[in-house]
Each structure stands twice: as C-alpha cells, then as structure tokens.
C-alpha cells in the first residue's frame, strides 16, 4: 500500500472522530427520552421479535450458497495447516457448521458456541482428547500396533497434559485431524485472555484444526502476534451472510425493554444459577412471599431475615446482607420505602415470569 494513502486514511479517521465528537457536543444533541416512545409490553416485543419477517431471504440464501464453491479451498487450507477465520456481517454459524458437516464428513467435528455466557474450556479439551483417543485406538487396531495405556482418565488430567496429548506426534495419515468449530471466538464466553491463550495453544496442536468466526470489529485485539502467527495461524475469509444473529443475540437485552425496570426472567435465571444454593433459597423465600402477597409493596427485611434464619439459610444479618447486595447488583431485587416507613424488598418481575423462574431454579 502506498504510504501516503495509509497516512491519509489515518487522518481521515481521526478527523471523522473529532467531527462526530463536535456534532455530539454542539448543542444539537436531542433531549428526547426513550420513554417518549410508546414501548409495547416486553412480552409482546419478544413475541414480535421472534416473528420478524426476514427480508431478502432468497438473496441471503443465494449468497450463502455461493460460498459452497469455496468449501474445497477451505479444506485445502485446513490440510495445509491453517486455521480458518470467517468474518463479515451476518451470522456465520450455519455456514461453517454446514461446511464442517458436508466437506469435513470424514473428520470429527466439535462445535464451541462462544456466544454463550460461560464456557468451560477444559471440558471441551477433555472431550477432544477422548475423541482423539477413540480415533487412535481405532487406527491402531487396524494397523495392529499397541497404544500406551491411559494411566489416568482424561477428566482428571491437567490442562497441560491434555494439550500435550492433543499435540502428539504426527500420524502417518497427515490429514486426520479433529476440526474444532468455534462460533464467535470473540464471544462473551471466550473473551478473556486465559481462554484465548488456551484456544491458541489448542489451535497449535498437531491433531487440531480450528474454524472460527468473529463478529466484533475489534476482535483481532484479542490476540498477540504469537497467537496470530504461530498458533492460530489464521487464514482470513470475508464471508458476510446477512443472516440474522438469532442465537448470538439471544442473551443480549432488547434495547427497548432495557430502559424500563423490567428484568427478563431469563437473565435473572442465569444470574441465580451462578449463586450458592443458600442464596437461591433466600431468593425463593422472597419470591414466594411476593407471589402470595400480590398486593403488598414488598417484603420487610426483618421478615426475610427471620424466615431465612429459621430455615438455617443465614446465620446473621451480615450474611443476609451479602446475599442482598449480590441480588441488588444484578437487579434481581429492589428496595422500596414502605408506606409505614420501613424499607422493603421486591423482585421487579411479573407474576408469570416469577413463577417460571421459580420452577426453573428448583
């Protein structure tokens, strides 16, 4: 690239930024509130978003189909030792899974869904090691060789051991690799450095090839040069699909439902599941109280404390407060000043949502 052009671009970039900044602060900023929009009920909104009529359905399908002609090339690249990195607007989940299931039919394929909130990378690696073990066993049977006995089940081995096993010496058949499909390698469940380091080490293993997708414009910032050049060894492909991000967006709040105090039962469930059983039970007491006293403004803290203590859920006010702080931080519980002046607690969920939530945490 011409140096001047690059410089020009850089200037353009910062100029745009400052122009935008200026526009924001020049007083033209609109003061309209989100609440001015007559937002429909959240339930209705979710229903409607489930039934959005897709636009350009055929064009999108054509576009995705046109990538099929690239499949042999992708296989070629994988066999050459590269990892494939797909980017471009639109969900690429079905595209790469289709690629894996048709073009890599002879290989084992494991899919990691990075768009989910929490992923235990060790579990994935254990599963991969087990698959590889099976494969090797099968192969040795054919070639009548013997495999060293597994001293330890994979699940109790350390990460390093597992990665060493996956990085074993090359087999005679060079291209018998396991394909790891990572949907949204930049997703919330995989975004931390440690996981990325493990993924990078996984990708550099001799038995593993990675096909991953990114959606975030800044995703490359997740990796340093060692990861990019020596471990992931990315081969970039620009494959916009314009397919809706259905699953990927599932756990993100709807913006119009966000501003209101309504918490979706789903996110509440996710938060609750991450808490201790005792904390869950405390929440349950509060929820049951709210369901049985629908007209009450909320449950008094003292009341909650005495019931929790009776059930041996908390030993002191301090422990209860710790739980409550946790709840409040995640907006599971809110405080309200009762008409008699006492603070009381309530859960900002609808009756139905609350019932559903209770049934799911039990």
């Amino acid at each position, binding site marked *: 690239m011409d140096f001047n052009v690059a410089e020009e671009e850089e200037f353009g970039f910062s100029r745009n*930024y400052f122009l935008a*900044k200026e526009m924001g602060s020049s007083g033209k900023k*609109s*003061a*309209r509130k*989100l609440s001015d929009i*007559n937002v429909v009920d959240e339930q209705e*909104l*979710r229903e409607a978003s*489930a*039934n959005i009529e897709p*636009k*350009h359905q055929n*064009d999108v399908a054509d576009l995705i189909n046109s990538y*099929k002609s690239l499949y042999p090339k992708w*296989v*070629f690249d994988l*066999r*050459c*030792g590269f990892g494939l*990195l797909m980017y*471009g607007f*639109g969900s690429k989940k079905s595209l790469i899974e289709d690629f*894996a*299931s048709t*073009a890599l039919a*002879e290989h*084992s*394929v494991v899919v990691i*869904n990075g768009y*989910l909130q929490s992923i235990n990378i060790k*579990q994935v690696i254990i599963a991969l090691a087990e*698959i590889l073990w*099976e494969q090797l066993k099968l192969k040795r049977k054919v070639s009548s060789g013997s495999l060293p006995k597994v001293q330890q089940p994979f699940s109790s081995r*350390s990460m*390093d051991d597992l990665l060493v096993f996956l990085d074993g010496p090359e087999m005679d058949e060079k291209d018998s690799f*396991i394909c790891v499909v990572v949907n949204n390698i930049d997703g919330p*469940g995989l975004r931390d450095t440690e996981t990325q380091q493990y993924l990078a080490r996984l990708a550099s293993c001799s038995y593993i090839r990675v096909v991953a997708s*990114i959606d*975030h*414009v*800044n995703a490359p910032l997740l990796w*340093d040069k*060692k990861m*990019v*050049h*020596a471990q992931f060894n990315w*081969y970039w*492909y*620009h494959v*916009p699909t*314009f397919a809706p991000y259905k699953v990927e*967006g599932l756990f993100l*709040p*709807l*913006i*119009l*439902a*966000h*501003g209101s105090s309504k918490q979706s039962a789903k996110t509440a469930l996710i938060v609750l599941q991450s808490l201790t059983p005792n904390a869950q039970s405390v929440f349950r007491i509060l929820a049951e109280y709210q369901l049985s006293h629908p007209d009450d403004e909320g449950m008094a803290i003292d009341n909650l404390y005495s019931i929790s203590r009776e059930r041996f859920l908390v030993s002191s006010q301090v422990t209860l407060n710790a739980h409550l702080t946790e709840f409040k931080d995640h907006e599971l519980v809110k405080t309200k000043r009762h008409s008699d002046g006492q603070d009381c607690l309530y859960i900002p969920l609808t009756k139905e949502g609350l019932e559903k939530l209770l049934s799911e945490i039990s």
Partner: protein
Amino acid sequence: MAPSLNDDSPPSTIDEAFTENNLQPFVVLQKGSSRKSDRKSSGTGRTRRTDLSSASPKNSANIEDEKEDENMNLRMEAFEFVWSKIESTIKDVLRDINMNVFSEIQTWVHQSFDTIRSLGTPEFPEATQSFPIITDANSKRLFTGLVLTKNMEFVDDLLTFEELGKHLKYQGCHVANLSSLDFTAKNGVGGCLRSLLRQFLMSSLDPADISILASWYREENCNNPVVVIIDDIERCCGSVLSDFILMLSEWVIKIPVILIMGVATTLDAPRNILPSNALRCLCPFEFTLGTPAERMDAVVEAVLVKPCSGFIIGHKVAVFMRNYFVSQDGTLTSFIRALKIACTQHFYTEPLSVILLEFASEEDNLVLEIERYGLSPEVIWKHVFELPSCQRVRLNKPTSESLAHAFSELKRLQNQWRAVVLCLYVTGKGEKVRLLDLFCEAIDPESYNQGEFDTNMKAEKDPVLSSSRIKGHVICKAVRLVRDLSTAQLGNLLKIWENLTVGIPEINGKVKELLSLLNVEDGKSSKKDLTVTPRRHTSRIQLNIEKDSKSLSDKAANLIEGMVRDYMHPTECIPFHEIFCFKDADKLRLALIGDPRRRIQVDLLEFQKLLCCRCCTSSSNALLPSMHDTSIMYKLAQEHGDLINLHDWYQSFKSIVLCPNSKRKPRQSPLPKKRKGIKEAESQSEASIQARFCRAVTELQITGLLRMPSKRRPDFAQRVAFGL
C-alpha cells in the same frame, strides 16, 4: 444438527434456535468415520467435489471430475513437498545464523557449571536432605546469560530459544524452556516449578516442590548442567520471576541451574523488573543475537533467490510482503506465514503446479510425463497455451519435450538472474543494501521491459541527473558503490563475483578477464612502488595508479551494468513462469490481513452489492424500506455524532420502514411532518417495528459498532467506529 443450508426456509422462530444444540457450550457435531483402507491418504477433497458439480457446471462429466480430484491430491502432495523444503531451509538458515552465539553460550554454560562444581558437591547425607545447602554468599550466585534479541517482536525469537534448547540438549545439558506465560501472578512460582518438573521429570506431580527436582538431579548423576531458558523476561510477572530466582539461587549447589533469559530491549531490563535482592543473586553474562534485518536477508537469500523449492513469488507479491514487513508487522514469522499462504494459494489455483514436484527435485534433464498429473493431455495443453506468458512465444508443437525444453530455458535464465542479484547483493552488503529491497527491484518486470535500468544507469553517469532520480534505487546504489571501490576491495569483490557466476560462462568469462586485468595492474603498481623514483615524480605516479584503478572500477561498474541489462531477466518475463510463480498480491492480502473493522462496516453500508438484490439498488443514496434493517440503522447512525439519541434513531427508522414511496432524505427529526400516511399502519405494526429496531441494535452491538446506553445516559447509545 445444525439447520441445513439447503432448506429454503430457515428456522422461522427463535424457539427453533433454542431447541437445538445451540445452547450447549459445546457439541460434538460428528465423529470421524473410520476410513476405508483403500482410500488414499488425501481423500478429503474427493467426496466433496462431486457435491459441487452443480455449483461449477464445467465439471459435469464424472471422469473429468475424478481426474480433477486426482490432480488436486497431487497438488496437495506437491505443496507438502515444496513447503517442507522451504520450511526446513528456513530453519537451517536461522540456525546457522545463530550458530556462533549458540556455541558461545554453550561454552559459557560449561564454564559456569565447572565454577559451580568447584564450590563443592554436596555430601550424601546433605544431598538427600530436602532443604537447600547454603555455605556462603558465593554459593547463592546464579549464572545468568542475558540474550539480547535486538528485536521487539518476541514471536521471532520463539524458534531461536527452542533451537538453543535443542542445541544445549544435544551437548548434554538438561534443558527446560519456560515462556512468559509460566510466570503469571495467578499461578505464582508454583506454575513455573510445575512446568520445570514436567519438562525434566516428564510427569506432573501436584504438590510442586523443588526438593523433587533436587532428588531427580541426584539420581541423574550430577554430571550435567541444568539450563533453564526463559524466552522473554520483559513479559514475565516481576514478582514471580524474582521468587523463582531467589528459590533457584538457594538450591544452586544441589541443582546447578544456569539461567538463560531473552531480553528484547536493553540490558536495563532485569533491573527494571527485579527487586535488588533478586538482582544480587544473578551473575549476568551478555550475548547478542543477529538483527531481524539480517535474518530476513538470510531467509530471502536462501528461499527466494537461491534455488530452493522452485516456487517463486511475483513482483507485486514481493512488494506487498516487503511493505507488510517494513511498515506493518515487522516480524519474520509473518513474512514466512505470508509466503506459506502464497504457496497454498498457488498450488490450489494452478493445476500444473504439480510439476514442481519434479522441477525441484531433478537438477537437469527434466522429463515431463504429462499423463502423470491426473489431468487429460488436452486439458493441460489448453491450459498451457492459455498462459499469458505463452501468448508471446509460440510453441511450434505441443509436446512434452518442447515444454521440458522451455522449462530448462527458464531454469537457465533464472540461474543468470540469481547470479546477478547475488553479485549486486555482495557489492552492497557493507553499505546496508537490503537483499529484500534488491530482490523486489530485481524481479520487477516493468522496469525490465521498459529498460528502466538502462536509463537510470545513464543518469547515473550524469551526476546532476542522478541525485534526484535514482534516490533509493537499490540496484543503482549497488552499481555506484562499485565505482568507489579501491583496487584491493575491487579485487576481493571480483573474486566473489567469480565464484558466484560459476556455471554461467558468459558472465564468468568477463569477470575473469577483468580480474586478470586487475592482477596485471596490481603487478604494475607494485613494481612501480618498488622502483626508486625521484620525489617529484611520486605524486604523478600515484595519480596514474589512481587513474588506473578508477578506470578499472569503472570497467567493473560497466560490467555489472551490463550484467543487469543482459542477464537479469525477471522471472515474470519468461514464458511459462505462471506455473511456478504466484502473482496475486490482492488475494494474499485478503487472506493474510483480515480487516474486520473496515469490511464489516462496508458490508453494512453497501450491502446491496453483496446481496445482489434488485429492489434496493437505486441511483440515489436514499434509504429504502426494503433494505436490510441493520443496514438502514447503521446508515442512519452515520448522521449522528458520537452519541445517538435512541428516540430520534427509532423515529427515523420507523419513518423509513413505513414510508415506501418517500423520496425524502431522512433527517434526524422526522416526526412532525407526515402523520397522516403513517397513522393507519402504525397501530398494527408498532410492535413489529420496535422488535426490528431492537434486533438491529442488538446486531450492531454484536458487531461492536455500537455501545449500549449507560446508566448515566440511558437515552443515548454510543457510536464506536468513525469512518472506515
């Protein structure tokens, strides 16, 4: 399983997305089927090809298809052959470059080990105790080799330290390689100890304890030094590293550990990272590796200039790779990676690249058996004659022999080219002429075709012209250097040239001729020196000698000019080079550097180009309701500052979606005007529009182009990207 793409109706509700495997953190999509034993190792491409017959109609015939597959497998084989050759060449080159330093380090390691031993070996009862022995301050000294890498990019040195480890292992040392990742605050000193145990004892015991290491060393007969290599100390966590050093120093009598640490910046680095008590334990020595530029030149010389695999890159590709190295990435690793990508692409696209299998392995007498390449002869000949470089020269008859002849001609020309380039390189080496730059110029077909070298050379002779025009012209710089050489230097240079041009009689003869002329001159001048001359004549004779040498170096310069003009045929000017030469720089760039930040925005702004739909293409920039929702939203967002008022954004979105015939260019506050038209549609589709708005916002959030409203500013979303 995942919803298949072949379905015309993708899942219409979100619930479908829920039900499948999509909510599992990970899923085993399929297990590898056991292959049939008769299948060849590289059979993957085969099955898929048939599926694609609908996509590429010309492959309709089954036999053709199979041939194609066979060809593809051969190409894969050829790629593996060529790349392994390149890779091993690179490894060798890099190892050779470091060899001096490696052996220096090795000598030092053994000396240090002897010093440690001279402090005394532990007695048996002491040795078996599980605590360290400390006799005096001296026995706590830890010999430390600081290896200055002269390179901020530690990724290039990973291989160096790995090789160093191998080298020392080969010399009998116990070696462990630790990386900065072992020194994290999270794992503490236990993490590095575990890593040590795992590398020395080949096992991972959970309570990692250094006494285990000590007893292991005792069992190993205590005759060899233990070397711990840390590749980049600047990236280590300082406190963990200092704990590690303190621990090792206490045990140094029992376990004679010698540390080797990579330092990317300056010798100050340890002082900046470590506290003084840890520094006091170190007994540092300094070693220096070659610079990245030196390594680059060595790699370029071995892989791209000298005959290595037969695979070569075209001018544009070379320039792209050079620029990427010089101004963007700066690592040799990425340069090599780019070369690999180029290689992959070449073998994938060029059916005749199979020939490289033989082209590289056999020196002379290339025998081509077209039938062996899996393609039918007709297809091959058609392909050969369609090569652009073949259009210029007509092959009289398409036979294997004539093709083989053409290839040997190509080899001959390449040899000449190589000789000239190397001659230029040795000429300019001392004056910081980089081989990479030289290479890029030497393979430029344009300048060769236009005789640009020629004009530049002429300009060179005219000092007035030369200053402005030839600046930075590496070849001319090298030629100019020849003119300024003294006789002795010229003699040395000519001798090197003579060696480099062996096998090319045309050039070699001329070099020899000049060399003999030089020797005659030399003899003359030395004779003149011997004869006693009156004082006043000396200066004139001196002048004469200078003049002679001047004319000699002029001759040498003319010679190299002639060589450049006559013998430096860039490969891209030779017929059939397409079979060996990869030229598509754009493709390489796309594969090497993804540009998600720009491309994703362009996807959104110009989506109609990608989707090829007729409904959204209009000459004006107006937003149409048929456009992709997220695209509309993103285009609308462009009109806002860094903050987007959600209310306004929603209203503009709504007005566009609801107003199919509106030609109006949407502005920020669309509300007041046309209430009437909207009214009836409003009630029914309010929910759906809001849902679409929400989804578009979510999608923008996923792409990272939008930051959600904060608590402080609940009514504004924040733009993240400004401009492409």
